Structure formats: structure tokens, C-alpha cells
């Protein structure tokens, strides 16, 4: 487990440091989605539930800090995908980098779990669209979906 945590943090330090505008943040997001959708990639393994609690907590704290620094930098430079936001969306000026970083980590965690069970990157992309809305334009997430596309059968007792 320790190796996966270290590998992801090493990779994230480099990739997030290179994010200087909304388009590059979108590129970062695409790469992370690819990593998480690759079975047994360091990212997929690092986000699994098993493993040492203290090490996992430290890993998540450090990743969250890297994301927070990146978002903070984007806000200060004013170079985000704000122009793509529709009038109703959360404005970057209102965005709190630390809290947004928590939502992004939750979206990566929860979205990848939903994507694993669905065998489809769509839920993970939907999660990141919501989490990154103040900072980047919405990804083209394929055709519109209906989550209840078919009637759910009666569950067994």
C-alpha cells in the first residue's frame, strides 16, 4: 500500500504543479480518470478501502493539500475556465480552495467506486463535473444518461 500512496503523491506533485489554467486542470482530471479506470493502477489501488488507516489519512491529507495549492494558485492568477460557466453556476470568486479540494477527493473516491460497479467512467466524470464546476468547463461526458433507464426488479427478501 505504501508504494501506491507514494507513487500517486509523486505523480500528483508533478502533474498538479504544471496546472496553471482551467484547460490544464481539465487535462489533469482526464489523466486521473484514466488512471482510476485502469484496474490495479497505483491510483485505483491507493483509493481502495483496505490498508493502514494512519498512512491512508496522511496520503489523503497530502493529496488534498496539493489540490488546494493548485486551486488557490488558479484563483490568484485568475486563469480558470470561468468564462465557460453558465450564468447560474458557482463562480470561481466564491470558491473555497480547501473545501473544493475536499469535494474533489470525495468525488474521486465515490465516483471511482460507482464507476467500478457500473464498469463505466460516466459516474466518475459526473462526480468531477460537479466538483470542478467553478474551475473548469464541463467535460463532454458522452450522451445524456438516465440513471433509472430500466425498471429495477423487485429486490429479493
Amino acid at each position, binding site marked *: 500500500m505504501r508504494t501506491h500512496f507514494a507513487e500517486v503523491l509523486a505523480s500528483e506533485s508533478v502533474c498538479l504543479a504544471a496546472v496553471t489554467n482551467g484547460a490544464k486542470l481539465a487535462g489533469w482530471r482526464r489523466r486521473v480518470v484514466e488512471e482510476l479506470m485502469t484496474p490495479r493502477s497505483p491510483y485505483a489501488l491507493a483509493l481502495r478501502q*483496505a490498508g493502514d488507516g494512519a498512512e491512508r489519512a496522511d496520503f489523503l491529507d497530502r493529496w488534498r493539500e496539493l489540490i488546494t495549492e493548485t486551486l488557490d494558485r488558479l484563483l490568484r492568477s485568475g486563469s480558470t475556465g470561468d468564462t465557460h460557466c453558465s450564468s447560474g453556476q458557482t463562480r470561481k470568486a466564491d470558491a473555497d480552495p480547501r473545501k473544493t479540494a475536499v469535494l474533489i477527493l470525495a468525488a474521486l473516491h465515490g465516483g471511482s467506486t460507482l464507476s467500478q460497479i457500473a464498469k463505466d467512467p460516466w459516474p466518475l466524470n459526473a462526480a468531477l463535473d*460537479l466538483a470542478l464546476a467553478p474551475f473548469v468547463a464541463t467535460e463532454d461526458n458522452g450522451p445524456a444518461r438516465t440513471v433509472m*433507464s430500466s425498471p429495477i426488479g423487485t429486490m429479493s427478501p
Partner: protein
Amino acid sequence: MTTADSHNGRRLTARGAKTRTRIVTAASDLMYVKGVRATTLDDVLAASGVSKSQLYHHFDGKDALVRAVIDHVGERVIEREREALGHVSTIRGLRRWRDALVQNNALRHGAYGCALGSLASEVSDHDAVAREALSRLFNEWQGLLAGVLRRLQDGGGLAPEASADQLATGLMAALQGGYMLAQTARDVTPMATALDMALAHIESLSKD
């Protein structure tokens, strides 16, 4: 009186059904607290007080038991969520739903996470039947959230062009990821933050 055993199609007597329920309930509790992988059939035998032959009468092995646990936990969660979300049509109602989940998780310092989400993160790799069952259950849960968002749209509380399904999936991911962050931190604060941020975004879509 007989009851159908959903997995092997056998008819169960009332006594057989009671034994099966005892096994599944004990397994559900153990898997929630210890995790699926760490729970052995011997643990389930000890906790349920049934004999090995009784357990194997109902279940071929651990995979079959895990599938029954998914059905059992899923039914409970969906019933709870249908009750909580079935008539919600405002952001305030969604916030009350968030408060209940966060408060409930705070009682355990976030230690165990979501009963259904924990199963999803542990069993999705190696059992396609279990994975598909979980996928259906999460679809149903997200469908309840999408229903709330459509009612919000009907009432003018959410822009009509917003995709209720996509937002519902994003909100579910924030919830599940929030549970996982809380579990690691042994503190519900990150779960509360993730849900608040997701709901704030949904609320922002109602503004002109």
C-alpha cells in the same frame, strides 16, 4: 408456511427462513464492521449461532452469502432513502437529508461508512453478479435523488437545462466519497464539507 429462497429457488419453511435471516443479519453486521474480506464463514457461524451444516444448506459459500448480504443491506438502505427522499422537493429538504446522514454517521465518528458503499468498494472486483446487484441498487438510490432534483426543477428551484441524472450521480459520489474520507479521518467533517459543497453547487444552478 413456506418462503422462496431467492438464490437457490428452494422453498423454505418458516423455520428455515428464520435461520437464513439470522445468518444474513449476522453476516451483514460483521461485514459492515470488519469488512467483507476480513469476515470469515467461521465468524458468521459464531455470531449467528447456527451450525455449519445449516449455513451450507442455505449458502454454497462466501460469495453466495455476500450476495444475500447485498440484497439485505440494499433493501434496508433503499427503504430508508425512499422514506427520506420520496417527497422532498426543495433544497431545504435535501439539506435535512444531508443532516440526518451526517448526524447518524457522527454517532460512530464516521468509523464504518455507508453500509452499501463499503460493500461496493470491497466486492466489485471479483464477483460480477454481486457487482451488478450493487449497480442496480445504486441506480435506484440515484434515481431517488434525481426524482428530488426533477421536483426541484418543476418548482423552479433548479434550472430546467441542468441534468438531474448527472447531478444526482455527482451528489451520490460526493456522499460515498464523503463517507470514505470520514472513515479514514474518523471524523465526519470531510463528509459534511463534501455534501455541503455539492449541495451549494446544485443550489447555485437555481440562481438567475
